[in-house]
């Protein structure tokens, strides 16, 4: 089995705030679109070449408000709170079967905490919380099958 991580948005687009600007990034295999515009990106371990410009990723800090050093300059990156604090429900990103429920109703969860494990196509997927908050209802139980878009749980 392959373990893989899935954010709330799964494979679809994600909004990321860098410094003061919000960018909508979409990953689709090798294709990357930024704010709806397809761009030519070449990725390596610690380098990104975008439309011919090379950006060296010197350092990435882990955490909620992540600091990156790119070409010696600081970029502050966040993908939650400002954008995701408005998320009130977690939906299944795919068809599959719930194999583990890691939280209870009333639990206070942190951003990126694993909420449930979902099995689909022989892969275990972690569904993580996009925000900090208290869980109101859990709509599923272990071994239940879910469809894409089903509400798994809700926040208060």
């Amino acid at each position: 089995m392959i373990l893989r991580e899935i954010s709330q948005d799964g494979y679809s687009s994600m909004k990321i705030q860098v410094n003061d600007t919000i960018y909508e990034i979409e990953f689709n295999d090798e294709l990357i679109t930024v704010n709806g515009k397809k761009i030519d990106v070449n990725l390596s371990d610690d380098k990104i070449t975008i439309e011919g410009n090379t950006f060296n990723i010197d350092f990435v800090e882990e955490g909620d408000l992540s600091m990156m050093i790119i070409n010696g300059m600081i970029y502050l990156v966040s993908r939650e709170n400002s954008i995701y604090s408005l998320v009130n429900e977690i939906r299944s990103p795919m068809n599959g079967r719930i194999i583990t429920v890691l939280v209870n109703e009333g639990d206070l969860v942190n951003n990126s905490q694993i909420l449930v494990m979902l099995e689909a196509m022989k892969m275990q997927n972690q569904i993580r919380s996009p925000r900090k908050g208290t869980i109101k209802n859990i709509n599923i139980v272990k071994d239940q099958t879910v469809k894409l878009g089903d509400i798994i749980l809700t926040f208060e």
Partner: protein
Amino acid sequence: MQKILIANRGEIAIRIAQTCKKMNLIPCGIYSDADTSSLHVKHCKEAINIGGRLPQESYLDIAKIIDAAKKLDCNLIHPGYGFLSENQKFTKICKREGITFIGPSTEAMGLTGDKVQAKKIASKVAPVIEGREISNETDALTLSEKIGFPVILKAVEGGGGRGLRIVKKIEDLKQAFLSSKNESVLGFGSDRIYIEKYIENPRHIEVQILSDNSEILHLGERECSIQRRHQKLIEETPSPALSHEKRNQITDIAKNIIKELDYDNAGTVEFLYKNGEFYFMEVNARIQVEHPITELVTGIDIVEQQIQIATGKGLLIKQKDINFKGHAIECRINAEHPLSFIPYPGIVKNFIPPKGTNIRVDTALYSGYSIPIYYDSLISKLICWGSSRNEIIEKMKNALFEFRISGIPSTIPFHISALNDTRFVDGKYDTSFIDKLTTFSEKKGEIAAAIFAQIPKKLQLVKTDEKNNQDKWMKNRLGWISKYDIERNLSGWV
């Protein structure tokens, strides 16, 4: 050929070894258990493992160092900066053991090491800030009221910003006095405190001196006002704040102080500068971290002169031989979080220093090197020389953009921000510069950041066990930083 022991580590040990080779001296080294893969070892002809990890079990252990010198048959010791470089006990023992210490005489070091005494002597020929050593709390109150608030409390035998307290009103004096005394006892084993008038947001300007017993030369000044927690981050020479007359004035005063103190060898006279007035601070009796900028504008190898003076050959140059040419800036790059300045050791993934004419990089870093948690966070000094100040700011910015240090955070972003700040470009800055600094980044880099943020797990550039070490180390280091500083620094520069 004579052998010389370099009783230090890292970039300064390498820097000293280079001059030794030039002078046909055989450089020998020491290294602690934490430094078995340190680059300075490779630059020494022979090196001895002195064991230990913490400075007090290794580079500060006088007995171990004397023992190493004897084993290696060295009759000269260069202490570098920090560690034992200004330790009078060490110079005494070297003398007793027949080893030549590359630095000032024991007597001169004794005088410069006692800040109260040094200030008293210097006051004969230089303006000093009003203040003196105090005997107790009541005395502290009396003196502070006399000279007027704000005042600053300092450890007589301290350094590096520890024991410093700025007191703005009388109610806070008692608490500041007690905590300053505590910190001094813990850090330096002395409860001697002195109080002086606090000069708010001055410039910090120092003069490089070379002195043998017959001649005192100056190698110009260095502007060192860009500091955080009293530690320098960027230095430049000449100072953009000084007119020709002021420069002559400060270098003359510095020479006179050195004469009064009967000081020999290389030394630095530090001053505060505000509203056209200089105030003598102290004399640093060692080679300084920022010495390369002076070397680049004068063409003089300061380490070579130190060795010439200490071995009795004396100065081979006269003041008239020293010609100042162009402008030089140094950025001290530390392994620190660039916003909080909290030390952040770890494994260096890629280390690619910038190259080019008139770019000098003094460093002991290499790709794959694991920065030990026990020593200073300075990892590289980037020094640029150019004919004009504007030219060199551009050169330095480009060099910083090209400088690749990955896997650990460094203060490179701080330096880029500082060099883009109009206050720096205009040369109009003082020691409060960093408080009003804003971060600098480019719009086109934002997309790269956004894309990279989307790629999971690639972000794991720090290994877990390294991270644990870091946490432990950070906790230790945090002991030195006041809570206020942490809160202020974590909120960024704005």
